[in-house]
């Protein structure tokens, strides 16, 4: 589904992605963890080309990512993205947020898009907020709307860039529950997160990144109980102690 080969990226002098090799199979849930500044968000953002890469190649369903333009826009429509800061369209209602893409990008009739949009909002548990503006919702509700907005495009793969990092502890659960049910429904997902519980329950594979490299990857069971690298042991020591 997603294939990254020899990907390199620099931010000025900082080599933020080094020799990235990654294959994500259809239906697979890959969770990317690692310390801040390890390049995991950047990795996630390169997959729909919100960040460009310096070297290497990225393919989605066997097609290399096109240059900025119409073809890239079409590809992005098939790749869902959920951001840390939700990024709901602030001037549109919750329902409009979910229907804007299908109507404007896919050319779906407005009534059909609204029907489908309400179903999706129902599915993520915020249908009662459909007429409100994003700013009137809690963070957890906003993030669930953002997930519904992505789903409305019927994406083949979904990227989550620290989806719960801006949320209160109570709201993290409701968002993670939504993501777990997506994962169980067979969605292909790449999830950058600090939620180890989610990694344990929902991931097919855990990817550990540090200093721009994929240091280690394994099943969650193996990774958490028996990390191979010093760097991963050190990281897990620090975060799992409390």
């Amino acid at each position, binding site marked *: 589904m997603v294939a990254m080969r020899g990907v390199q990226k620099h931010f000025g002098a900082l080599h933020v992605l080094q020799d990235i090799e990654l294959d994500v199979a259809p239906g697979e849930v890959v969770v990317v963890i690692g310390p801040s500044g390890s390049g995991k968000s950047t990795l996630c953002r390169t997959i*729909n080309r*919100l960040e460009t890469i310096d070297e290497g190649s990225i393919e989605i369903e066997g097609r290399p990512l096109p240059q*900025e*333009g*119409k073809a890239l*826009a*079409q*590809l*992005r*429509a*098939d*790749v*869902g*993205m959920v*951001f840390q*800061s939700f*990024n*709901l*369209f*602030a*001037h549109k209602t919750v329902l409009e947020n979910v229907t*804007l*893409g299908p109507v*404007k*990008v*896919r050319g779906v009739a407005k009534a059909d898009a609204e029907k489908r949009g309400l179903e999706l909002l129902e599915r993520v548990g915020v249908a009662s907020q459909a007429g409100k*503006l*994003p*700013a*009137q919702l809690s963070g957890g509700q906003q993030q669930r709307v*953002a997930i519904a*907005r*992505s789903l409305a*495009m019927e994406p083949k793969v979904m990227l989550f860039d620290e989806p719960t990092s801006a949320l209160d502890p109570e709201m993290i659960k409701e968002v993670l529950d939504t993501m777990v049910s997506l994962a169980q429904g067979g969605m292909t997902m790449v999830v950058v997160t600090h939620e180890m519980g989610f990694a344990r329950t929902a991931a097919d594979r855990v990817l550990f990144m540090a200093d721009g490299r994929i240091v280690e990857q394994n099943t969650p069971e193996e990774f958490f109980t028996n990390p191979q690298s010093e760097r991963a042991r050190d990281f897990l020591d620090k975060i799992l102690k409390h």
Partner: protein
Amino acid sequence: MDALTDNASAILDGFWLTIQLLVVNGIGALVLGTLVASLRLSPVPVMRAVAGLYITVFRNTPLLVLIVITYFGLPEVGIQLGFFTRISIAMSVYTSTFIAEALRSGVNAVPLGQAEAARSIGMPFTMTLTQVVLPQAVRATVPPMASVLIALTKNTSLAAGFGLAEATFRLKGLVNDYATERWVIFFGIALGYIVIVEVISFGAARLERRWRVA
């Protein structure tokens, strides 16, 4: 009070001309300013440079100097236009620079994440602008835009020096004719400007409320 009541129709005529100057130049400046702002925000460096030069030149020149240039300069080079048009060209160009900068600040005020989200659901560049960025930018632009229009309202008084019988021109005439009622005349005319400005402020406040996003 006689000075005002006896000359009510002349004063109202004056304010009518003031309003005409305001409306014509407000629209002219909005159109020009939007054009300049889109150049200024364009990905093409040459367009940005042209817009930057336009803004530097016309924003930093006193409006009076610009009016002198179009008023006396255009006939010099063989362009024959009426008083109103010659003055309006200078006024629209001058005001458009402020409109352009207000619009630019509005676009910059829209968080980058909004455009990223739009691109992520497959919107091409132009659609991202028209559907997501510009509608929010325009909202953020209402207060500075109102300030620009208020400044324009008062700037229209410069036309008095060039033979257009707008409100301030009437003021000058009345002050000469009614030497004992100068205070009344000043405040009467000032009140007229205040009414116009308040209408603009009121309209802006309503737009802000209707378009608010939080």
